[in-house]
């Protein structure tokens, strides 16, 4: 009936250009009430589910959870035992380390922890000797004794040889191998203005420079001396959806030092012991101590000097505010799929293709309209979800590990892009399959499956899935770097993805591009 007139006017319009086609597609999308409702629902659930995600503050003594911030603005763990004295102006400290021993909770590494006990063995007081790979003891030059102060340190570690670490995030390797009385390690730090240089040596004669760092704004009098720290022992007990709950307890490290040589002006002339970040720190402190006898100093300490890994008991991951993305994506996928499958169901596709016979252009117009509209939806949703979620988390007493404004911007824009590219994938698969139910399910399953399967699959298999499937796109929501010098469970649900943010999004884009290409090919070849 009317198809004839539409065709004739449509052909003319087709010659008028692509703009006409875009307008036609936009009108189709805009005028179906169910789709607009779907997009609104997508935005609402993205925000709403994000508000549900909450984290109870795990601080035992009831004080507000908060973490010190390091010089770079990142949340840090800064608790250790510090045997210090002030150093006025330039100077150096040299020591020989003859042993590093430690205490870790019993029972935890023996495999006796059977599933069934809900909470698992807590931090029972019984300890056995042993070291964490990142148990550490050594020498340190710090701006002050307050938490989060700038520092540079040379240390021996439980399993990673000699390291030079500075300002929480910096880590450089020195001599490899474990320390013992037969194979001691010599460590030296020299301070000259803002610059601190670390050296190590196996014999105290031939020295190698490990690194030189600038500690901006280092005061003229700094706190320098010996330290020991040992991070929480954690053992992954149960994996739930790629997240994992661990059990563990505080550990202790004891370093034995001798041949202490000080250069420069050390006005106090004697050592003072201090538990840095003792009360209210993220690590339950086992008591630190030091003993001085003859030329020998033995330092015992617990805790860590390192960046905080959100989700491991300290702060909260900011991307938790965007957990609603999963729910929003499902709504977006439904709308984007139906944008094409509904045309097939109603036979409208024949009118569309009669009006605009160049089928590739029809698909392109649909893709552009879908992509832009969904991007806008995602942008609105993420722009609202992030600050609202942050507010809700803070209200609940949580401490959100701070990120730079640029990272926040990337989270918001990246989430919008994630929505848009997923919608394009859905549009392409809808064009290929032509059936809403099958297409919607296919897209949702490839995006969600790695997270669902993470409950049962091994960590390696899950990581692999998160690299190659469209689910890799979620990497764009990763907000924090992964630090090799901290042992933690870096899981996808915890906000750590195997790919860097933009690479993850690129994987999703590649899937969408390939699907769109195939869809265009099929659209041209097949009868509508």
């Amino acid at each position, binding site marked *: 009936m009317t198809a004839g007139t539409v065709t004739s006017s449509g052909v003319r319009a087709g010659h008028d250009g692509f703009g006409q086609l875009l307008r036609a597609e936009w009108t189709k999308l805009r005028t179906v009430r169910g789709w607009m409702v779907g997009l609104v629902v997508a935005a609402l659930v993205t925000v709403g589910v994000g508000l549900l995600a909450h984290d109870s503050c795990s601080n035992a003594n009831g004080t507000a959870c908060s973490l010190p911030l390091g010089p770079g603005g990142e949340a840090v763990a800064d608790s250790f035992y510090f045997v210090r004295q002030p150093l006025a102006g330039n100077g150096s400290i040299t020591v020989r380390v003859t042993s590093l021993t430690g205490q870790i909770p019993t029972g935890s590494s023996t495999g006796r922890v059977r599933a069934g006990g809900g909470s698992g063995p807590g931090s029972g007081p019984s300890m056995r000797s042993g070291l964490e790979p990142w148990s550490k003891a050594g020498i340190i030059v710090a701006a002050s004794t307050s938490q989060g102060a700038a520092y540079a340190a040379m240390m021996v570690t439980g399993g990673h040889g000699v390291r030079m670490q500075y300002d929480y995030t910096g880590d450089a390797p020195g001599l490899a191998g474990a320390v013992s009385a037969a194979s001691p390690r010599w460590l030296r730090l020299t301070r000259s203005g803002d610059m601190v240089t670390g050296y190590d040596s196996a014999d105290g004669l031939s020295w190698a420079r490990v690194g030189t760092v600038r500690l901006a704004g280092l005061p003229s009098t700094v706190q320098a001396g010996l330290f020991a720290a040992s991070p929480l022992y954690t053992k992954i007990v149960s994996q739930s959806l790629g997240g994992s709950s661990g059990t563990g307890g505080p550990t202790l490290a004891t370093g034995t030092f001798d041949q202490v040589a000080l250069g420069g002006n050390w006005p106090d002339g004697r050592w003072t012991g201090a538990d840095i970040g003792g009360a209210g720190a993220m690590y339950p402190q086992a008591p630190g101590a030091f003993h001085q006898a003859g030329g020998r100093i033995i330092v015992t300490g617990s805790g860590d000097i390192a960046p905080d890994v959100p989700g491991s008991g300290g702060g909260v991951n900011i991307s938790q505010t965007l957990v609603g993305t999963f729910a929003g994506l499902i709504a977006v996928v439904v709308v984007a799929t139906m944008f094409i499958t509904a045309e097939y169901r109603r036979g409208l596709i024949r009118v569309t293709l009669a009006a605009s016979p160049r089928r590739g252009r029809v698909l392109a117009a649909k893709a552009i309209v879908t992509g832009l509209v969904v991007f806008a939806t995602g942008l609105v949703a993420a722009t609202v979800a992030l600050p609202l979620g942050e507010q809700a988390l803070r209200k609940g007493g949580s401490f959100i590990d701070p990120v730079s404004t640029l990272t926040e911007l990337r989270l918001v824009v990246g989430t919008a892009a994630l929505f848009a590219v997923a919608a394009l994938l859905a549009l392409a698969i809808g064009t290929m399959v032509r059936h809403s139910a099958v297409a919607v399910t296919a897209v949702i399953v490839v995006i969600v499956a790695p997270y*669902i399967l993470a409950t049962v699959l091994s960590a390696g298999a899950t990581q692999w899935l998160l690299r190659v499937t469209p689910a890799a796109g979620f990497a764009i929501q990763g907000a924090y770097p992964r630090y090799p010098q901290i042992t933690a469970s870096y899981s996808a649900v915890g906000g750590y993805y195997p790919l860097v943010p933009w690479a993850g999004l690129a994987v999703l884009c590649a899937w969408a591009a390939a699907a769109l290409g195939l869809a265009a090919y099929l659209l041209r070849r097949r009868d509508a």
Partner: protein
Amino acid sequence: MTAVPLGPGAAGPGAAGPGAAGSDVAGALHAEWTKLRTVPGTIWLLLAAAVLTAGVSAAAAASTRCASGAVCRVDTVKISLTGVDLGQAVVAILAVLAVTGEYSTGMIRVTLAAMPRRTTVLAAKTAVVTGLVLVAGTIGVLGSVLAGRLILPGHGFSPARGYALLSLGDGPVLRAAGGSVLYLVLIALLSLGVATVIRESGFAIGAVLALLYVVPIIASVVTDPHWERHLQQISPMTAGLDIQATTGLSGLPLSPWAGLGVLAAWAGGALLAGGLVLRLRDA
């Protein structure tokens, strides 16, 4: 669509329907069976559900290893039944299309004209879908158990190291496997109910998958153990899949059968809602 040739098949028993109450139900069953049987998608979806269930299970078993000397606290039965997590999506498509396929073609008006008792129509659909999913689910689950039995011993889970071969003669294994088939059936019923309420394939499948997959993901992000447990207790997927657990039962949010009961309640609720709106609304 392809539903067109079904017309006579559906109308035939319908014409005989008003005669006697007994043949009414039989006619409805026969009509629904004919409709589902002759839509070309059905057989492929059933096949896909069985193959995906068994295939993903086999892949999950193949990706699980236990290094020699290590103590692996792994529920080998649950691993072997992993495919159900994805196979359920295909089952959901099948159930949704059984309803929405009729609405998209207008066939539903013919069906309801021939069979004015709407509850009977829904009951007949439910029965036919249940039967089909029982068959496909059983094949998929048996394939999964077989894959686990063949693959796991070579990956460190051998009887010599204290991991029994998967066998349906073993009580918990039988409960997990049989429960998984029931789980798939209940997912189909849940989808059938939701689809009857929503009537549109895309929206209906979206709603079902959101209900299944989103809640567990949220539960995993909620770090408050109290909340997490509650979410796991009410989520149809997490609660329902408790039926697959054979180790650490005391740590589960719900006991296996109670978990399946939660899913049954969801399915029953959805069917009830579907039946109500089917009676009250115009087709």
